[in-house]
């Protein structure tokens, strides 16, 4: 079985976001980059599938040269090889999906897996758009995945608000992973050493022949307003409770 796993490199979630006035992207110097956490669930699931059914796991990533670090980490977890679509350009989900779908088509696959969303811009579009580009069935926000390799059928449980849904679909398909699908492994030392020697094929975005005009343009980016200083209520408990109720009702308007 050949599984493609789409991996995005994103700023570490603990990053302090910095913006200069007029910026349409965050300042990236000094940022620690990591694998998108939801993609880690995807990688783990692919590795488990491969351990059960055999075959190979190919990492597919898009972005500037720094992305190779994330790729090597995915390889250290146990993926077999990688394809890096290289670009320094700012691109939107649509262009990313087109580029990734094009490479997937050339590469061939039985299954495509990725995270349900990337935690940088939180758009949750690329997985779904890749399925559309390739004309594949898809199931998103998956918390349990069963793949029957013999019959080439997939049974997936996906998370809904307050409920879960069981979906059946044929292979090939696109799956997007939600937290809870599994517990991602950490790399082992032998795998970290092997990862250095695994193949990472670099493909310039321009060489793919896909339309790279973005559909979405960021107009403006601002930080959330600073939270006002906390109000501390003093006095007798009875008085304070009354004042709290009044503030919640009249000022915060939450009750």
């Amino acid at each position, binding site marked *: 079985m050949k599984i493609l796993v789409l991996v995005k490199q994103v700023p570490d979630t603990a990053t302090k976001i910095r913006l200069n006035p007029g910026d349409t992207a965050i300042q990236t110097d000094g940022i620690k980059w990591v694998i998108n956490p939801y993609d880690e669930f995807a990688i783990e699931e692919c590795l488990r599938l491969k351990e059960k059914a055999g075959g190979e796991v190919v990492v597919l990533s898009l972005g500037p040269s720094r992305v190779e670090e994330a790729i090597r*980490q995915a390889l250290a977890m146990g993926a077999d090889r990688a394809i890096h679509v290289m670009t320094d350009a700012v691109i939107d989900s649509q262009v990313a999906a087109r580029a990734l779908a094009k490479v997937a088509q050339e590469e061939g696959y039985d299954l495509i897996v990725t995270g349900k969303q990337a935690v940088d811009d939180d758009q949750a579009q690329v997985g779904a758009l890749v399925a559309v580009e390739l004309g594949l069935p898809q199931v998103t926000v998956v918390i349990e995945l069963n793949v029957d390799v013999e019959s080439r059928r997939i049974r997936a449980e996906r998370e809904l608000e307050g409920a879960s849904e069981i979906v059946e679909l044929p292979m090939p398909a696109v799956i997007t992973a939600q937290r809870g699908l599994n517990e991602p492994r*950490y790399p082992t*030392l032998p795998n970290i050493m092997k990862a250095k020697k695994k193949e990472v094929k670099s493909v310039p975005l321009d060489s793919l022949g896909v339309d790279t005009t973005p559909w979405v343009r960021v107009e403006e980016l601002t930080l959330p307003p600073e939270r006002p200083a906390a109000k501390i209520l003093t006095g007798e408990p009875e008085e304070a409770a009354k004042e709290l109720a009044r503030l919640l009702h009249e000022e915060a308007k939450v009750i």
Partner: protein
Amino acid sequence: MDAFAALREGVRQLCQRFPASYWRDCDRDRAYPEAFLSAMTEAGYLAALIPERYGGVGLGVMEASVILEEVNRSGGNAAQCHAQMYTMGTLLRHGSEEQKQRWLPDIAAGRLRLQAFGVTEPGAGSDTTHLETTAVWDGDHYRVTGQKIFISRVQHSDYLLLLARTTPIDQVTRRSDGLSVFMVDLREALQDGLFVQPIETMMNHETNALFFDGVSVPRENLIGEEGQGFSYILDGMNAERILIAGECLGDGYFFIDRATAYARERVVFNRPIGQNQGIQFPLARAYAHLRAADLMRTQAAERFDQGEPSGEEANLAKLLASEASWEAANAAIQTHGGYGFAVDYDIERKFRETRLFQVAPVSTNLILAYIGEHVLDLPRSY
């Protein structure tokens, strides 16, 4: 980019599953960090220095030093990792092929714990060649008699690497002759005249006094040639110093990470305390000393791994790193004020732990004595 970025990241990811609270609990309960050691073993880190043909990963001292550094930097303590990683060095360098086949694959897989190393004695501390524990050949077995002290991890190890005298000191030309190294099966020894007396210390570090009363050790457990043991131990010292330097650096960076974060957040007199030079400068100075020690560690490790003489660099690295980690510890506890003494902040625990490196496995004065004698060509001082 750091050539070891991927390695560091790997160790960090593993260590993240063992947060400071895990180490606090171990410290409070004086518990052996079993779960952490299993995870490090399973991920292959503790087999870093064992060649691939014996089931290890076959890396150098540089990588091993970085692994231990990252463990300590995460807030953990690498003492047990260090022991399982490195005690086998003597066996690897001087054991017979048969002995290596017998033990190394099991050590690499973690099935066999070789985490105890018995040198120090009450009557011969820093002065190793005067140790009095004897191993006498009775025609059948070696019989070990004597006393050792501060022998760590004996209760959590399957084997002990033991240094004992096989030829009395008055029958050898040089006092460093006549000492031999043995692999002692601890389970057997405990049935056969070995008594273990735990020693409480100021940190969570299982260490013991050992009493040997005619413990028998088979000939096939003698490592290398009889009488050459001291040189076998000596030629493992440089690597050990480089590993210890890594652990010191990890501690030092831990203190700087924590103290700078705290100094940015803690507001007193309407300003973050880190804005005061009295807080900022000691941290800056400690950081500078850490970085300098780090360079010396790297140089020592590179020379060692290339097979060049590294005695000077390894000793300098250990000296500088252990002093820098202590300086950082002191700056960190001062930065934290009263909170530095509260267990939940981890500073007091690491403060206790990092102090050890100036005494064990070798104390600072003995390092200085080495530099004086062997680097500066001054008369031997001891």
